[in-house]
């Protein structure tokens, strides 16, 4: 067999492998969509009915009327959006401070922050919950947003990024008598936009999909985020208003983040790559 036909054969084998694996990957999602398009009574007979018609949009009509998903969607947008902004602000300021400025015990303080990377959320949950009880922050937006601001990953990332920017830039600005804050704001911050994008995407995805803290902090249905709201429907699985209806909620919850993913796919890939290099 010639080298070129061997190469062609290999290409076909690779493509076939990808198609099979890709199909397996997507089957669970396709099954979910199929179920969501069936009437609840059809599915009660047998879920095998989902392989053929009739299909209906009645579940989708039903959740617009009765379900809490819109409220949960709004809560998720508020919490994830504000948390992302908060992380970007705090991490940029701190990253600049650690990378560029001198102050007493700077290196020790930075080490203390690095140590935080090893602290799992679950290890602090009991006392954090007590703290927020004491401050009456449960079932509130600040209560849902604040814990995410403490994660050290952003500070670590931004510090590395600021360190990589040539010092000559600030030195020129110092000659012009610019203040520290002005150097940060006008000269360096615009250069960190790629890192801001990386951090922003990670923070938003992490916050949007966070289940652990909102599950513990938000106990009132009107303060549920999308993840917790959906879990409440799921835990009551036995008394569910119907499989089709439940699957419609899943589709509804998945669609916004999948749209965000498809739009920002290029940036997400770059963000992961960027974080890997760092």
């Amino acid at each position, binding site marked *: 067999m010639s080298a070129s036909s061997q190469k062609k054969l290999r290409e076909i084998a690779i493509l076939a492998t990808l198609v099979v694996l890709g199909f397996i990957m997507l089957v669970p999602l396709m099954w979910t969509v199929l179920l969501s398009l069936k009437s609840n009574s059809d599915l009660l007979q047998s879920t095998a009915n989902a392989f053929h018609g009739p299909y209906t949009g009645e579940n989708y009509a039903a959740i617009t009327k009765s379900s809490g998903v819109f409220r949960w969607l709004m809560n998720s947008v508020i919490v994830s959006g504000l948390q992302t902004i908060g992380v970007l602000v705090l991490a940029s300021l701190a990253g600049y401070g650690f990378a560029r400025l001198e102050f007493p015990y700077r290196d020790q303080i930075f080490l203390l922050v690095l140590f*935080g990377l090893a602290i799992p959320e679950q290890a602090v949950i009991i006392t954090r919950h007590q703290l927020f009880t004491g401050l009456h922050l449960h079932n509130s937006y600040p209560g849902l947003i604040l814990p995410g601001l403490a994660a050290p990953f952003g500070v670590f990332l931004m510090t590395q990024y600021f360190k990589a920017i040539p010092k000559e830039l600030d030195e020129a600005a110092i000659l012009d008598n610019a203040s520290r804050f002005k150097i940060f704001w006008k000269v360096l911050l615009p250069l960190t936009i790629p890192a801001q994008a990386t951090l922003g995407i990670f923070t938003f995805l992490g916050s949007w999909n966070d289940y652990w803290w909102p599950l513990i902090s938000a106990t009132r249905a009107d303060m549920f985020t999308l993840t917790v709201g959906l879990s409440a429907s799921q835990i009551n699985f036995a008394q569910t208003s119907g499989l089709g209806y439940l699957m419609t909620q899943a589709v509804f919850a998945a669609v916004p983040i999948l749209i965000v993913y498809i739009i920002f796919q290029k940036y997400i890939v770059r963000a992961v790559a960027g974080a890997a290099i760092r």
Partner: protein
Amino acid sequence: MSRALSQKGSWTNALFVAPYLFVYLCLLIYPLIAGMGLSLFKADLFGGGSFVGFENFARLFRDEVFLQSVANTFYFVALTVPPLTVLPLLLALLLNRTTRVAAFFRGVFFSSSVLSVTIVTLVWRMILMSEGGLASNITALFGADAIAFLSDPKIVMISMAIITVWWCLGLPMMLYLSALQQVPKDIYEAAELDNASWWRTLWSITLPSVSRTIILVAIFECVLQFQLFGQPQLITQGGPNGASRPIVLFIFEIGFRRWDVGYAAAASQILFAIILIATLVQYFVTRKRGVQ
């Protein structure tokens, strides 16, 4: 010049790090230390409690339910980390090219990673549940009995592992892809000139150049999968007979369902110790890279 920059550091410079540091100390360090303290008390929901020393820890090591959850967690890590280290590498090797087809499949394999655990479990419950799940529909086609994916204590953790691999393989795949893209192209060109076979190129060039990424992915996944919680909490509530209850679910149940907070705090110290060790290993492995 740089003397002007590094003029004797003053506390006012620390104002830049102060806002973050305040949040960090209040919401991460304080709860950590307070949790260590709390683990030495017999305390209920309202905090008031009596000092019991290490009695909570002694109780943990006698507690069958806790020991089972530790064993479950290690079993789960052993089930998930190898496939999550190898499978994404294979995918990355297949997809390390700039064609549109490759970009499409990268998108497909990463898509599950952007979903939340509640969506993932809802979707997979519809596959694995023994009455009406997709899997049982398929086995019925062949006239076979449905497999008790979620109710057989021997199988349930394997089911959790399948779900988790499906959910998590996108991120390591992306990490491998970015590592593969940093392998200098001219090495491959040289190999091609030497008529090196595909396998030989893979063994002698590609794999050695991503070996560090392989180790990093393995450790990263260890840390991540030790924190298993949502999948069993949502699908099986830890059952049957506690066969799918991981450490984090134990902490959750003791702390927020039975409100035995001192005891739960003690269990979370054990989790912290395990994860701290894994993170330290990761730190030293990354360190070896030198410059960074």
